[in-house]
């Protein structure tokens, strides 16, 4: 692979694919890097907002990554954070406007979380750590990968919170009505943010049980 440096590498080379796969497990933005926790707690009471949030973050992150990557050689380092913020904020507003015009119903789901997308640490983290130093295509893949990793955790947390908190999934009643007659009750605590944190903690625990290399050494 000596030509790798000079010539174009294939679009889906092993290195590029790793950009997408890494964040799904060993380099997950939420469970390993512990970024974007705030929105993970806020939007996971129900599955639907969690999915909408995951998709919106994916669009915003992939697009801002590409834009920043294209601009990366001209951005003055002293104002790079502000430049990144302008790009993110513009993207979010643009996405919101387009959704409002074409898929109004979904935009209503999203409207609450627009502010949260702008402040999502994952987006700025990826711009700063990756897009500033890489070409547009890897930056795009990195954006997709990280938002997939983020979305995956969001949806898993929302799954448990909606199932045990409301007895529904995506708004459809899952727990049979008979259960309530026997004495089963929805766990109201699951709807509140603390349980999101605890669910997240359990996910991190399970992940580290299987991926021992993630465990920090006790000094």
């Amino acid at each position, binding site marked *: 692979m000596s030509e790798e440096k000079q010539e174009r590498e294939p679009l889906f080379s092993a290195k590029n694919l790793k950009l997408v796969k890494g964040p799904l497990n060993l380099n997950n933005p939420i469970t390993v890097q512990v970024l974007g926790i705030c929105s993970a707690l806020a939007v996971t009471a129900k599955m639907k907002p969690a999915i909408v949030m995951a998709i919106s973050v994916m669009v915003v992150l992939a697009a801002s990554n590409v834009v920043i990557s294209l601009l990366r050689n001209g951005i003055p380092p002293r104002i790079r954070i502000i430049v990144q913020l302008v790009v993110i904020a513009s993207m979010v*507003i643009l996405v919101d406007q387009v959704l409002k015009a074409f898929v109004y119903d979904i935009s209503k789901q999203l409207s609450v979380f627009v502010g949260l997308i702008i402040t999502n640490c994952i987006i700025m983290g990826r711009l700063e750590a990756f897009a500033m130093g890489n070409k547009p295509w890897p930056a795009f893949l990195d954006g997709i990968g990280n938002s997939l990793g983020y979305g995956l955790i969001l949806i898993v947390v929302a799954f448990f919170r909606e199932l045990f908190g409301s007895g529904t999934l995506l708004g459809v009643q899952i727990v049979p009505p008979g259960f309530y007659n026997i004495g089963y009750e929805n766990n109201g605590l699951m709807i509140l943010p603390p349980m999101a944190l605890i669910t997240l903690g359990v996910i991190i625990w399970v992940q580290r049980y299987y991926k021992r290399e993630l465990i920090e050494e006790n000094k």
Partner: protein
Amino acid sequence: MYSNGYIFRYAAILVIIAAAVLSSANMLLKPLQERNMAIEKMGYILASANIENVTSKNAIEKFNKYVVEEILVNSKGEVIDSYKEGNMEDGKAFKINMKEELYNKSRGKDFELPIYVVNKDGESIYVLPLLGTGLWGPIWGNIALKDDLNTIVGVTFDHKSETPGLGAEIATKSFQKQFIGKKIFDEKGNFTSIKVVKGGVKKLPKDQRIHGVDAISGGTITSRGVDAMLSNVLESYLPYIEKQRKK
């Protein structure tokens, strides 16, 4: 390294480009967005009167079919505009800005409020739009009354940014269907509004339960907002409603 001049030029150009992109997107998409909002408003008005199968596609057609009159009433309860013919969304009442009118009311000025008269199976249903404040932002909706202007046929609520799973539950069917059949006047004809009761309706004395619904656990402030919105807006319509009831 980059000179200060370069940094300033860079920042200025970047901001101008961002502003240009955003404002042109806003201008291009505005008509579509306003259309969507108008369609949504029609859908909610029809939904509060329990008209079924209204989607964003057929809302305009059904709105023209079911809404037979749009009335504009002033603070003294006088009818100042009645719109019956033609495209119902062109009526003066449909275009009224509730926020401004309720603001005028709060400052003791005159105001005008819309009423939509829906004809469903020969029965007249009066739909009054609502607007108030929740925990994080505005909440709004419609309340549909039978032609006795007392019994509730149905309500819809919506919100800008209430907490999902808590305050946002006001937008769900299970909260809204509690209102059906409740009354806003007691037997002596005194205005009671509808109370949103923390801890449940059964806390109220038996004879008042017809004027109350259960609040949402965990959504206390939003529930209070709904309560305040109902009493505030219905009170603004009182002069008109009482005139009609005396007839």
